[in-house]
């Protein structure tokens, strides 16, 4: 034991003492003339007064032990009401465990209890027993932030939870709510920052089923929403297995029930998470369906130990490579070439025949900008490199080209290429296509007469008003109004008949085919794996010029040809509105979150400002609700479903982009309430604990001694034992008064008055 002396004075006392000292100093000149004994007595009285004013204290010093402080967070989220195989709720189990170990805990640490959901709230031990689940799911960002801001310097954090984190803090890919702080958008970023601000390690205690039922679950399927044709991409899956230690797990990636690849894992521990990534090649265009299938490798595997998760990927073209071959310079060529060239999604190669073999040349060849017609390169060598081949008013026979070239073009279409044939006086019969291999590809049969192109104004009639290609406006009515208000076209082609399977989109208002059907002006058909469009006139430039007369038509021409390319290359039908894949069974955590992706025509994320999104949620029983929707990042919209009823739920999203119908998608999932078979999000809790340097344990398997051993040891520190206020002794006043009396008597006695 030791002693210490200190001053207990505040600012007021220091000011008073200072004033006393100052007053003494000011009187010093007169005091100097006094006899020494008198001056000494007065100085002693003043010094004693200043000392008393400074409030001296004396204390004893003792060595003592200080226990580490732990913050105990008890998850109060809705998932904690689940009753597992123990007969009581998870929250009650966590509370009971803590209460039953209170003595051991408090003997080793200073325990600060918090209820954790949308934030962290201090609890007493008495409050803990009566804690009830809250509707708000645990939000780690808010909880950790509250703990940090509580001002308690904790040595360790203990989290009792089933791992049902707020959706934003979980994995975003695949709509899974497992895992923590990984690619979860703004919420995850905030949660990660709050977690980092926790200076103490975090131990997680999983509160869930005690019995490890054998199970296999594909908990995650990460895949891109869309990929480019012919590219290679990766898809990955996470599979959680429990209760099957010692057996082999087989994970397969299937496309249309065809196994693309598979991997096998040896299960070593009672609970394990396996991750696998598979490379995939995007060989087909459009929506491709895939599925991860996980099962135990041995043949006797129980049916329940199989799991799968399906997902879809849209395969699109990165750039549409277009070959445009025109028979002669024309306004159609000039405008359409500029239109195609101006679209950054088009890679255009075009050739136009500037001079025919019979044309006269007034100057030597080196004064002409002409190049030899690269027919072989166009029809043979480079043809497979293109997605769309445009033939405009090109007289094939004029160049005495081999018929094999047209056979090649036909093969190009049958293998998935697109062909657009644009009319003109030499585009069809006169151009030498009648009876050629290419005629078989056309949506129409050609007439035998070579003068099949007839000049004359006409307004084409819409023949297939519901065809997606013709939807040029918000509604079919407005679209039809636009079609009807277009300027007239000039010149059309006579055809013999429309081939079976072809669709006439626009027809001449009066003329008929030889077989008596409305004469096609625009017709489409599929041939093999490719698409063909025929436009029987080369005067659509009139629509562009007509846009100068009517602002409503100003963008019509561009939209028409842009949609034509999209239709022919297959991207018009590709969905632009899409829900992320959902697990077969949604985890019973509220809110359930669905991610909706919306793309523009070039598959770029759509800004919410330009989007009108309507989401209809049909609950079990058929009632409809409007769920909360917010944009978590450009083009990605979180649909949050709360107060879920047990059963099958359907969610339908309808999007309008820039005022136009853009697309819709629907998702369906089964939600099961707080029953005893809810999974415990061990992986999420493990991630959380490992990130903060802590450990994870199932609550029913916690080794309390080991957990307490992880706490820092109690530290010895010197503290104040007892203290005595010297200044409060009344004798000081008597002492000062005695000194002053002594001084007075001395002056009286010696005559120093």
């Amino acid at each position, binding site marked *: 034991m030791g002693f210490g002396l200190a001053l207990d004075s505040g600012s007021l006392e220091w000011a008073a003492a200072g004033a006393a000292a100052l007053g003494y100093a000011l009187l010093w000149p007169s005091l100097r003339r006094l006899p020494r004994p008198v001056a000494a007595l007065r100085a002693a009285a003043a010094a004693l007064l200043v000392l008393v004013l400074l409030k001296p204290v004396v204390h004893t010093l003792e060595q003592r032990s200080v226990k580490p402080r732990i913050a105990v967070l008890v998850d109060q989220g809705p998932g904690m009401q689940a009753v597992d195989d123990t007969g009581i709720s998870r929250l009650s189990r966590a509370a009971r465990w803590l209460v039953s170990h209170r003595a051991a805990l408090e003997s080793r640490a200073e325990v600060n209890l918090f209820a954790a959901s949308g934030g962290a709230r201090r609890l007493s031990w008495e409050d803990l027993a009566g804690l009830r689940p809250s509707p708000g799911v645990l939000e780690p960002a808010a909880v950790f932030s509250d703990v940090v801001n509580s001002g308690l310097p904790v040595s360790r954090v203990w989290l009792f939870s089933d791992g049902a984190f707020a959706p934003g803090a979980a994995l975003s890919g695949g709509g899974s709510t497992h895992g923590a702080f990984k690619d979860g958008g703004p919420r995850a970023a905030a949660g990660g920052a709050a977690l980092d601000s926790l200076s103490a390690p975090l131990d997680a205690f999983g509160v869930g089923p005690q019995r490890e039922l054998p199970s296999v679950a594909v908990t995650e399927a990460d895949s891109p929403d869309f990929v480019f044709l012919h590219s290679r991409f990766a898809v990955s899956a996470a599979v959680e297995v429990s209760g099957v230690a010692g057996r082999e797990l087989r994970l397969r990636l299937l496309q249309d029930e065809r196994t693309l690849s598979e991997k096998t894992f040896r299960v070593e521990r009672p609970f394990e998470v396996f991750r696998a990534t598979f490379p995939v090649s995007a060989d087909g265009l459009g929506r491709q369906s895939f599925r991860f299938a996980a099962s135990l490798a041995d043949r006797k595997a129980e049916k329940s130990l199989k799991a799968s998760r399906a997902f879809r990927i849209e395969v699109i073209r990165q750039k549409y490579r277009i070959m445009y071959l025109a028979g002669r310079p024309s306004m159609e060529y000039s405008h359409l070439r500029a239109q195609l060239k101006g679209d950054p999604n088009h890679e255009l190669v075009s050739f136009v025949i*500037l*001079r025919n073999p019979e044309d006269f040349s007034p100057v030597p060849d*080196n004064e002409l*900008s002409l190049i030899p017609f690269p027919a072989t390169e166009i029809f043979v060598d480079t043809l497979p490199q293109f997605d769309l081949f445009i033939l405009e008013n090109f007289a094939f026979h004029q160049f005495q080209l081999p018929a094999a070239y047209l056979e090649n073009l036909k093969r190009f279409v049958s293998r998935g290429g697109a062909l657009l044939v644009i009319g003109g006086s030499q585009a069809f019969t006169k151009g030498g296509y009648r009876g050629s291999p290419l005629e078989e590809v056309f949506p129409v049969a050609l007439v035998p007469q070579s003068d099949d192109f007839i000049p004359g104004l006409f307004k084409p009639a819409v023949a297939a008003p519901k065809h997606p290609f013709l939807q040029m406006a918000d509604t079919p009515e407005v679209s039809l109004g636009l079609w009807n208000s277009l300027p007239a076209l000039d010149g059309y082609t006579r055809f013999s008949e429309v081939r079976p399977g072809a669709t006439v989109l626009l027809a001449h208002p009066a003329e008929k085919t030889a077989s008596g059907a409305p004469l096609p002006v625009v017709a489409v058909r599929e041939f093999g794996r490719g698409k063909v469009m025929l436009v029987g006139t080369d005067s659509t430039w009139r629509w562009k010029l*007509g846009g100068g007369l009517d602002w409503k038509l100003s963008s019509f021409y561009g939209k028409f040809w842009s949609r034509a390319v999209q239709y022919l290359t297959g991207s018009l039908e590709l969905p632009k509105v899409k829900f992320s894949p959902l697990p077969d069974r949604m985890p019973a955590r509220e809110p359930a979150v669905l991610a909706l992706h919306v793309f523009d025509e070039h598959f770029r994320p759509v800004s919410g400002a330009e989007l009108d999104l309507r989401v209809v949620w049909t609950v079990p029983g058929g009632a409809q609700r409007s769920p909360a929707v917010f944009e978590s990042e450009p083009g990605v919209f979180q649909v949050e479903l709360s107060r879920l009823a047990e059963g099958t739920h359907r969610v339908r999203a309808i999007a309008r982009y820039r005022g136009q119908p853009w697309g819709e998608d629907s998702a369906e999932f089964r939600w099961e309430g707080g029953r005893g078979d809810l999974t415990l999000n061990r992986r999420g809790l493990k991630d959380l604990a490992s990130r903060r340097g802590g450990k994870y344990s199932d609550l029913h398997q916690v080794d309390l001694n080991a957990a307490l051993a992880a706490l820092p040891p109690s530290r010895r520190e010197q503290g104040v034992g007892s203290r005595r206020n010297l200044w409060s002794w009344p004798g000081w006043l008597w002492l000062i008064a005695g000194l002053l009396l002594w001084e007075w008597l001395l002056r009286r006695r010696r005559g120093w008055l």
Partner: protein
Amino acid sequence: MRKLFLAAALAALPAVASAQYGDLFVWGQVRYTGAWDPYPGVHAEVLKFLNEVTSVLEAPERRAVTLQSPELFSIPFLVLTGKQAPPTLSEEEAGRLRDYLTSGGFLWISDASGVAGSPFDAWVRKTLRGVLPDTDLRPLGSDHVLFRTFFLIRRIGGRAMVSGSLEGVDWGGKTVVVYSRNDLLGAWAKDPLGGYLYECVPGGEAQRMDARKLTLNILMYALTGSYKADAVHQPFILDKLRSGLP
């Protein structure tokens, strides 16, 4: 004789206006109060040359329209020429010309006066500033694709050498107005016997040939746009330009 020819051409206009041409190239010409057609038969000469030399199929008749005509927006190629300043455009006419040019129309303006600083030239500059105030009339560089749309043009021809370059107005990445000051059309004008009406000074027949080639390139530019600027043509064109001819 020229007056007679003009009268015949004017008489034919109503019939021309109602005719349809299918996919043929149509020579459109702006008609205004005043001498809007200094060389009445010259379009036929140009179109004949176009037909003989290129694969373009043309309508034999031209179509003359006013800027207020309903037909304006069905004629994508227009010539505007004169020796004197045309009347100032009304607000409506200027608006229609703006709409025409910004929706895909092409205008070739040819100063037929053959002198620098002509009233026609002043009218053109003032009018274009009013029609397209956001763009400027600028000289076309020698690398402009117009000079290689068919012939490789190294020199600017015309009846009179007023300027060594063409000028133009760009809109949406394309030159929508081309302005020539050397009376290109005057170099084509012939008398009824087939002889050229005017000397080309100072370059003579070579200058006339340059004018014919440039005229055709202007038409081909309207019909093919920037086609000859495509990369596939460049090695051939550069080889020919390097050959030093003509």
